[in-house]
């Protein structure tokens, strides 16, 4: 919407200065490349958060000391659609890297979520039982899924850096 306004103002300026009227098609040709450039930049900035480690299956983990906070990426939540239900493990349950950790339901589909790192679940995000859409609205903050006591910090090396995940995500979209 903002970019249409910019283009519309540009058209108005041209008209005020007595240059030939810019057609609707020309205005469209002006704002579309601008819109794409800005939209891509905004999406890139939000889609992959620095400071996290990413699995190929689109989960992320943030390790702080011996605690890992786990969630799903912005790319994953967008592809899954509006979540209506999140099933989380019990506190105290243990998972190996790559094992099914949780499941999420979007309209018509249940999708498994996998442990990006081995550990024992020390906390679950209880807000998700009433507000599963937190995962859509805030996948890297309020929409976290579980916290784990990390069993093997060496596994972090097998995960992707934010840059590597950006490339992986781009390949996933084609």
């Amino acid at each position, binding site marked *: 919407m903002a970019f249409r306004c910019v283009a519309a103002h540009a058209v108005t300026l041209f008209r005020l200065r007595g240059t030939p009227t810019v057609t609707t098609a020309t205005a469209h040709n002006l704002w579309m490349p601008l819109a794409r450039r800005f939209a891509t930049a905004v999406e890139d900035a939000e889609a992959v958060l620095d400071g996290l480690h990413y699995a190929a299956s689109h989960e992320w983990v943030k390790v702080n000391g011996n605690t890992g906070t786990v969630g799903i990426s912005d790319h994953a939540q967008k*592809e899954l659609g509006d979540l209506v239900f999140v099933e989380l493990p019990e506190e105290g349950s243990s998972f190996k890297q790559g094992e099914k950790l949780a499941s999420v339901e979007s309209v*018509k*589909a*249940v*999708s498994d979520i996998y442990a990006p790192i081995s550990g024992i679940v020390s906390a679950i995000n209880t807000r998700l039982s009433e507000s599963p859409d937190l995962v859509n609205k805030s996948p890297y903050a309020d929409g976290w899924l579980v916290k784990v006591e990390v069993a093997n910090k060496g596994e972090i090396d097998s995960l992707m850096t934010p840059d590597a995940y950006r490339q992986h995500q781009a390949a996933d979209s084609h």
Partner: protein
Amino acid sequence: MKLLRLQGFPILQQLYLEERLLRATTHNWCLINQGTNPPAIVVGISGKPEKLLDVKAVLQDNIPVIRRFSGGGTVIVDTDTVFVTLICRRDAVTLPDLYPRPIMEWTEHLYLPAFQTVPRFHLLEHDYVLGDKKFGGNAQSIIKDRFLHHTSFLWDYQDFRMAYLKLPQRAPTYRLARPHSDFICRLKDYMPSREAFADYIVKAFERQFCLQEISLDEVEKTQPSSVPHITSTQIFTTADLQQSIMPLIVKG
């Protein structure tokens, strides 16, 4: 792709079998089950009976209520339902990754040849429709490198059974608050016979897959149920259903 054709196979056993074939095998599968007996209500993984059903009527008439392992809404199934299930490996489909919407759209193209003689078949939001009338319920379960997509097609239905289902809180936009009778249609009004419908489906799938028919006995021998796997399908007991409406009764 292995093709398993069943007749009147109980839906609870079908769901157990599907979950096993999805989680504990590596093959591609197609199941076609012509009807189920006794009638049953099947809700999605997060379905709450008290929100979706007239539980008192369900209890009075002793209708089994099953929670399946896949997502999606509520269906009442009986001998007039035709079930078609696809279980596929990631490498069986031309999708970059396994997410609900691309899978749904892929199935629309897969099914299209089966409905060549039927006007206005298409995918509308998340439903297969003829025009704007739904004729089947879809649901999916997606795991690493595999997915399941199952459909319960309404060959025919009994209006009195639809009365067990409440108007869902989450309904597609195109439903426009229509009651069941105005929102759904019977496939038998558009197809010559159930057998012909099943044959159309097989022929449509054969455009993309090489189908190899297998019997239930062979499935049990080669893919034994003793292989451990996650099981989420469950049947609600009478006590479960009574418990679900207790707060509503207490509120009066």
